């Protein structure tokens, strides 16, 4: 048993799947059923992880913002550190009345939160927590991730249109414009890394960092900076949160949402936060690589380091106006990302 646990934690080989597969086939049962059942198990594991992470992240955000602002943050629900605060809030949201505004496009209104939230789960198909801790080792992992992560923009526009509210529509359009503007520099920064690693597979990208994390490579500093900024813009965080800021005139695409639908948007934002930091860890910080500790733990530590950095930036900077934000994305970040790509490609071709 101890041996099993240690192999499991080391993630060196598939400690669970291989024996299970052998046992299954030994009984002569059809492999397809095993694959289907395993897929369901993986999906459940990913979903459970995301929901747990989101719970922790919301609590962490509130504690971190409290610390930065010289105040306590949640301190009553669930002990002195308010550990159950998020659970209490989620429960509250679940108990709210299910409202659909009059004149709203029912179908769009209902589907939009799903379209925003589900891609956050889908991207984890190709994000490895350890060498074999990944639902599917896709050869085109990075391509898949980028493709799936552009789906939420569609959901935001659906929410804006389906709400039958001109402010929501305006907010939805702005959010979509913002996501489009920052998608391109993000992709180019990711391309810089793939040029360096020579592969689109996320596992290969991490393996390519065995000699040294990519962030230590000066040729990738600019791509990292671009990635970091574009990531904050993709997840609608300050300084790029005009689309949802409550103190602006236009209230945002999720104004008309309440209860669990709103919770989906809210949880989606935090799921994406985890996702972009996990992606950044895989691309720049060496994924699961690290001495002594179990690889999956390294992955989580590095991801949380990026998460804390993003939270730090959020609670420091004021927000940009939509025209300034779009101008910055197209006129500053995109050229910077292209320059970064050129340097990275040059470095990769020279052989480092």
């Amino acid at each position, binding site marked *: 048993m101890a041996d099993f646990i240690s192999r499991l934690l080391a993630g060196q080989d598939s400690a669970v799947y291989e024996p299970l597969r052998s046992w299954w086939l030994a009984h002569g049962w059809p492999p397809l059923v095993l694959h289907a059942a395993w897929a369901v198990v993986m999906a459940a594991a990913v979903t459970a992880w995301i929901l747990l992470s989101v719970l922790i992240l919301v609590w962490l955000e509130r504690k971190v*913002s409290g610390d930065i*602002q010289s105040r306590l943050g949640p301190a009553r629900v669930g002990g002195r550190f308010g550990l159950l605060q998020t659970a209490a809030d989620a429960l509250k949201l679940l108990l709210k009345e299910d409202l659909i505004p009059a004149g709203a496009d029912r179908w769009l209104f209902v589907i939009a939160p799903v379209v925003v939230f589900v891609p956050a789960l889908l991207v984890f198909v190709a994000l490895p927590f350890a060498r074999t801790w990944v639902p599917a080792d896709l050869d085109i992992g990075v391509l898949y991730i980028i493709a799936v992560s552009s789906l939420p923009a569609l959901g935001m526009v659906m929410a804006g249109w389906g709400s039958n509210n001109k402010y929501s529509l305006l907010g939805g359009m702005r959010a979509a414009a913002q996501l489009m503007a920052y998608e391109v520099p993000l992709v180019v920064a990711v391309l810089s890394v793939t040029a360096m690693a020579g592969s689109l597979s996320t596992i290969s990208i991490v393996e390519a960092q065995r000699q040294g994390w990519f962030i230590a490579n000066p040729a990738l500093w600019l791509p990292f900076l671009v990635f970091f900024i574009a990531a904050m813009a993709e997840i609608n965080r300050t300084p790029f949160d005009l689309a949802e800021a409550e*103190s*602006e*005139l236009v209230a945002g695409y999720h104004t008309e949402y309440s209860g669990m639908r709103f919770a989906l948007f809210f949880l989606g934002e935090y799921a994406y936060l985890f996702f972009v930091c996990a992606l950044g860890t895989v691309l720049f910080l060496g994924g699961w690589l690290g001495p002594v500790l179990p690889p999956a733990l390294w992955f989580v530590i590095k991801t949380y380091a990026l998460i804390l950095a993003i939270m730090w930036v959020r*609670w420091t900077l*004021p*927000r940009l*106006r939509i025209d300034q934000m779009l101008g910055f994305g197209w006129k500053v970040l995109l050229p910077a990302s292209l320059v970064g790509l050129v340097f990275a490609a040059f470095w990769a071709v020279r052989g480092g």
Partner: protein
Amino acid sequence: MSEATTPLVPAGLAGLQGDAVTVAAGPQGAVITTTPERLPEVCRRLREQGFDYLADFTAVSHPEPLRVVFRVWSTTARQFAQVVVPVEQAQPVCPTITPFWPAAAWQEREVWDLFGIRFAGNLDLRRILLPENWPGHPLLADYQAPDPNHLLPTIEPDPSNLPEGQTLINFGPQHPSTHGVLRLVVTLAGEEIMAVDPVLGYLHRGIEKLAESRTYPQVIPYTDRLDYVSGVLNNWPYVLAVESLLGVTPPRRAELIRVILGELARITSHLVWLGTFANDVGATSVFLYCFRERERALDLMEEVTGARQTISFFRIGGVPYDLPEGFAERTRDFTRYLRPRLDEYDALLTGNRIFIARAQGVGVLKGADVLPWAVSGPMARASGVAIDLRRSDPYSVYPEIDFAVALEKEGDLLARTRVRMTEMRESARIIEQALEMLEPGPVLAKVPRQIKPEPGAAYGRIESARGDYSAFVVSDGTPKPARVRFRSPSFANLQVLPMLCRGAKVADLIAILGGVDIILGEVDR
């Protein structure tokens, strides 16, 4: 209230004396009494003589007659002139003075609203504090309040006669960023603002009418509820006015205590402004930092007065009790603690590239528009007009204290932020100097048990955190005032908001509104 005004009538005004116009010397400047027919001529002459700033405009209904009373100020000669225009009781009419002082536009609307005096020639004479369909004019002596259970139907703005491509958006009164219950009816063409029409009165509590049924000392706690973040700065103009009427001077120690508490109040007010403004543009942490600093200042006020926000500590003749033991040391600790924090706010805001992008060039108020529209306070000083009433119309012991007048010239939001940050630093300096100047002595002058001034009228004027804040008190020989008028800087400054917003993007509307720094308590009274 200024020692510099001479009791004699300025030469240029003496020529006005004639039939229907009398010019007399008053303790606070020349008093010109005229008829409505001769008013435009009087105004023209006053303008020619350099009276370029409309300090206050109101009406008084009793003791008889019903009259329009306004006061103009010459910023260069530092002199006042008060104009009194009796109007007829039934169907009162008076010509508008907006051609001479545009700032009178909203003030005339208020007088129409509360007194029923029509201003011929005012292009936009609607009610301002009460709904358009309100019956009667409340500040008249014989006003009967309507049944409070009878609800008036709401009037909505009509968008049907807008030009092509323009829409109407209603902003407020419930909105996290209006800093109170303010409603703005905004006409947009796409992203650009065509017009802004502020709808006021959601916080109107009738404090001026209320004051008429309270004794002079009883009015003081109500003044706190005007500019509710500024503490004692609200009590000050009113007690100055009543002290003028009584001919009482507070003792020196009381003046110094007033200065110390007043400057502490100014710091807390600016901290609230800075925090909420930063919050409007997204820097939430600054909001919390400002409130953290403010808590320490409020602790100091609590030690002295017993209250943190609605202080009512000033009394007619001084302050009621002295400072507690150790106050001076704790206050010095606070000013020492505050300075590095203000530098941190510079790092987070005024020096921050993103904030500069949001604030530079936004909501520009040209220097030439400041005086005609009676804009005062940091808004005026940010546009290059160096008027600070602590220097220009001094009161209390400010002439003995060394401080700089914060001045910037761009007139945009960044300039306003810098002006207010500088004012906080200067207030800290003023407090430290005043603490040094403290000497043992009484804190309350001898005033009669029952305050019953001789019939007359007086102004009390101070530089509050928002600008020119004055009170006008009319006494009729009874223990209760006949009229108390509060001229609030937020009301006057808000008048230029439509001008600032025209042509701006809708995303900047919040920031511009925040930069004006209004408190609805003193706008609506």
